[in-house]
């Protein structure tokens, strides 16, 4: 069986990290299995982990009193979930719920952020990688906001 560090090495997110760093990150990680409906994260609860989704589908959700859970985005095999552990106050902003059986590597954000404070080089490496994911998600969210597939606003004047 592969160690967590070995599994991480195969993921593009961790590519080219120093072996010692990978060992450290892997050292505070564990394999986790979530059944359908299980929460990986819940809004306002302490965010002490992040996840590499190995298989399965995760919904990033928020909850509306009159509508119930509202899915903002789905995450799938290979996706990374969770950056709230990096920033105070270290609590989740959204829910993350397994939509089917999810196999994930749950990594210890809490021990990692303490290590990063002392090792800015590793901190910067991780920050760059999370920033990339954050910008990709921001970009996607912006395109979603544009509602490109929606009906255009009623055109003015004489049109076809």
């Amino acid at each position, binding site marked *: 069986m592969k160690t967590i560090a070995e599994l991480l090495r195969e993921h593009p997110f961790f590519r080219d990290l120093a072996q010692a760093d990978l060992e450290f990150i892997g050292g505070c990680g564990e394999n986790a299995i979530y059944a359908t409906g299980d929460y990986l994260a819940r809004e306002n609860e302490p965010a002490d982990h992040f996840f590499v989704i190995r298989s399965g589908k995760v919904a990033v959700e928020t909850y509306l009193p009159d509508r119930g859970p509202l899915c903002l985005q789905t995450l799938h095999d290979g996706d990374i979930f969770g950056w709230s552990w990096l920033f105070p106050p270290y609590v989740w902003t959204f829910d993350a719920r397994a939509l089917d059986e999810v196999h994930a590597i749950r990594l210890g954000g809490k021990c990692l952020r303490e290590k990063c404070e002392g090792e800015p080089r590793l901190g910067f490496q991780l920050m760059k990688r999370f920033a990339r994911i954050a910008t990709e998600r921001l970009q996607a969210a912006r395109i979603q906001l544009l509602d490109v597939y929606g009906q*255009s*606003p009623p*055109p003015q*004047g*004489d*049109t*076809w």
Partner: protein
Amino acid sequence: MQDYVLQARDLDILIQVVRAEGFEVMGPVLRDNAIVYDAISTAADLPQGWTDEQEKGTYRVKRRNDGAYFGYAVGPHSWKKFLQLPHRQVWKARSNNSGIQVAEIVDEAPQLAFLGVRSCEMHAIAIQDRVFVDGEYQNDSYTRRRSNIFMVSVNCTSAAASCFCTSMDTGPRVTLPCDLEMTEVIEGETHYFLVGSESYRGARVLQQLPVVPSTQEHEAKAERAVQNAVRQMEKGPRNFDSTDLKELLYRNYESPSWDRVAERCLSCANCTMACPTCFCSTVEDTTDLSGTYAERWERWDSCFTADFTYITGGAVRPDTRTRYRQWMTHKLATWHDQFGSSGCVGCGRCITWCPVGIDLTEEVRKIRELEKINREGP
């Protein structure tokens, strides 16, 4: 080959012979203080003794101090109005219990003679031929009309200040085929046309005219007259090198010059209406009140109008900057890739008839200068 001499006093005979051959003659007439193209029945209808003064946003007809028939350059009209009709019905349709029936409107293509077609205008007609006749699809109305034209061309012997055919390599000497080619020569008491035929139909007309073979002197005088027009343009302010226009404009889609011209351009579409090559059209669909009879009409359109590029949601070219850029870049650059030649013949109509005096040749120069400054610094 122009190798005969027709005395100016016999010009009317030419017109009558052409009419007798079955053509309705269209030629220059003076109307509303402009020389325009319309039906003529005698030489007396021609603007004899008149010329035009043209500059940016300026057009005035003026008396000449001689009796020249073709002593003007070009007016606001071009021959395209007889070939690509400004407004024509395309089809009619009925809807009743048995369904829809659509019937094409085949408009009558009259036998027309164009009298006094300039070299730039012949190039313009050739350019429109490439658009409407030579492509995969034809404009049938244009194609039928075009095939009926008896063309009498006239070499230019003087140029307006707005003319720049020498820069576009489209004049002033007629080089494209026509039925009859003429050069008007007027020196003191001498007033004749050097005339030649280029077609069977032209030769038939020529045979019926009181012409005499030309002498070397006749020909030399005619050549000097044409050279006069060449000199006027080559010395004029609108003389420029057009060989690299396509590359220049392709490089300059984002030139600040477009912003500057957009501050002046009114998007009024005058340039496109006056231009002898602009071919854009749109269609209008209508029904009668009962809703059972419908028509489709085609009319001239302009890339300067707001709804020209309308797609779901809005116009692709929403402002004057992008519309002027489209017009000029089409005319001088993309036309080459579309139809194998420039879309500009140097007739100067867009300069004269622009209400704010935008000069295409000046805009080319500005783009060139701004590009140079951008590259090398001021």
